[in-house]
């Protein structure tokens, strides 16, 4: 998944007054020829990356829009208007996939958003062992997802899995985890949070280190307890990072694929883990219906474009 940035927005940079193009070394004579040669060199450096973008990024973006309104039969491409959208809309899996995806996003926001923030808060309070704790939290991010997901599948097993064993210590009865439609999605989210929370935690930690300590002192003089300090000082002070991570989390979790695909074969018990991206995958690679896949993809794209736009605006705001 491509990674949006938390740092300064490039557009903000461009708004700075322009530096003079020609350096002091450039002789004033022969302006046009020189400029031409300079541009040929500059574009020569650019061309490789631009060609890759053209073929594997820009053209596919255009193609996504075209595909959504086309049908391909035995290599014959025809325009079908909104037919693909109608097909996708009428598919009984459509509603379920969206409900599941929103449910996943909601769960992932509760777990995947709150857990890293709390983790960062806790780690930040310690004067010892911060390096070790940070290392631990980031460790799973470095595993290939196939490895961590298959490992979790094993841990979740109702018979020989470790999770039921650990729950048993606390007297909690054994669960079916991935096999039960009620707990399947939650199990997927827990695995996903474990795999991915390292990055967010480190970013929160960096943000927490920027909170001025005097604010806590002032709050204490006003008699604020621990929770009030978090609520009235920490959260307001880190709110931009929190908002950015929230948007990033929404954008990432709405595209969830590999966790349900590997943990429950994609659909899960009674379709309880079918997500929108899994449905796109099915249309394209199981049913060879690229038009329907593109139409569904376009719906997701339009929806997420709103979040992306918000993200970009906020990101710019952090710079100013």
């Amino acid at each position, binding site marked *: 998944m491509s990674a949006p940035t938390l740092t300064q927005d490039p557009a903000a940079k461009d708004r700075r007054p322009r530096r003079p193009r020609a350096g002091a070394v450039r002789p004033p004579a022969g302006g046009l020829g020189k400029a031409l040669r300079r*541009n040929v060199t500059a574009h020569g450096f650019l061309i490789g990356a631009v060609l890759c973008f053209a073929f594997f990024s*820009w053209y596919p973006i255009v193609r996504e829009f075209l*595909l959504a309104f086309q049908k391909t039969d035995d290599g014959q491409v025809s325009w079908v208007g909104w037919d693909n959208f109608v097909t996708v809309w009428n598919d009984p899996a459509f509603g379920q996939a969206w409900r599941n995806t929103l449910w996943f996003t909601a769960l992932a926001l509760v777990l995947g958003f709150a857990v890293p923030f709390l983790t960062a808060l806790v780690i930040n309070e310690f004067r010892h062992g911060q390096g070790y704790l940070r290392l631990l939290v980031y460790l799973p991010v470095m595993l290939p997802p196939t490895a961590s997901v298959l490992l979790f599948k094993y841990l979740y097993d109702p*018979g020989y899995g470790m999770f039921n064993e650990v729950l048993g210590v606390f007297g909690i009865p054994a669960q079916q985890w991935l096999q039960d439609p009620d707990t399947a999605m939650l199990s997927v989210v827990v695995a996903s949070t474990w795999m991915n929370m390292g990055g967010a935690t480190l970013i929160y930690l960096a943000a927490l280190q920027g909170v001025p300590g005097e604010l806590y*002192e002032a709050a204490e003089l006003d008699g604020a307890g621990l929770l009030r300090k978090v609520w009235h000082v920490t959260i307001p002070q880190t709110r931009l990072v929190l908002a950015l991570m929230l948007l990033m989390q929404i954008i990432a979790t709405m595209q969830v694929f590999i966790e349900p695909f590997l943990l429950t074969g994609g659909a899960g018990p009674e379709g309880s883990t079918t997500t929108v991206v899994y449905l796109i995958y099915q249309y394209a690679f199981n049913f060879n219906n690229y038009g329907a896949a593109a139409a569904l993809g376009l719906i997701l794209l339009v929806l997420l474009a709103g979040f992306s736009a918000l993200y970009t605006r906020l990101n710019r705001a952090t710079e100013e």
Partner: protein
Amino acid sequence: MSTRTLISPARLARPRGKLLYWLCFALVVALFTLAFLGPLYWMVSGGLKTTQEAVQTPPTWVPGSVHPENYQRAWEVMDLARLLLNTLYYAFGALAFQLVLDVAAAYSLSKLRPVLGKAILGMMLVTLMIPATVLVVPQYLTVLDVPIVERNLLNSPWAIWLPSVTNAFSIFLLKRFFDSIPKELLDAASMDGAGPLRILWSLVLPISRPILGVVSIFAVVGVWKDFLWPMLVLPDPTGQTLAVGIYSLATSVPENVLIAALTIASLPTLLLFLVFQRNIMSGLTAGGLKG
């Protein structure tokens, strides 16, 4: 650590505070170790058990008998040597392409400032806003039949290498770093008669070592962790990556052998992380990158 955090230092200095602090600390360290190292321990030790022990209820914490030969079996049965070599080949190929093409592009955009450079950079950055999963279908169709050159890249390493160059995030990181290199330095070099390539090679690149390190690590880890794309474009089992190969063989080998294979697949990036953790973590907070 001298920065003031949530809990006041005065309170921590009291005996009761000290006791509480160390109690919480011990608890958190134990909990984190269990939560994050626990599954990894489970993976390594699970690979050492007999098949019977690996699937017995209740599970055992410590293997009853140790069978390191499971790792060897996994290595042979799943042909891990080949998968590992494939992955290395794809990862370092992608790294080479990204380093050469993205560094050149970022250098051009930052220092040579060509006509339309800003528009090109803008179009590159726009791709960051398109959900990656949405593009998988049209990208796959492009790989099946690349326009103009009319080549099918299925099962070819180019299908991994070329799309990996379209990493607008690396270009952005590199450009931002190059922007911070003082212009006077480059002007002095060009006054001495150095061309753009020479300036890039002997001046810009040596200064940029930290950012090149970060971009390189993320490039390698990116290929190592990727699943959906290599699964689609490398259907031939002999050319698959470790992540995809293990997935496709997962159901045909006994549990303990599979777990041993997972351990082997995880080792390279874990080692990379342990060696370069400082660079990775600083790059992460500098760039706000999320896996």
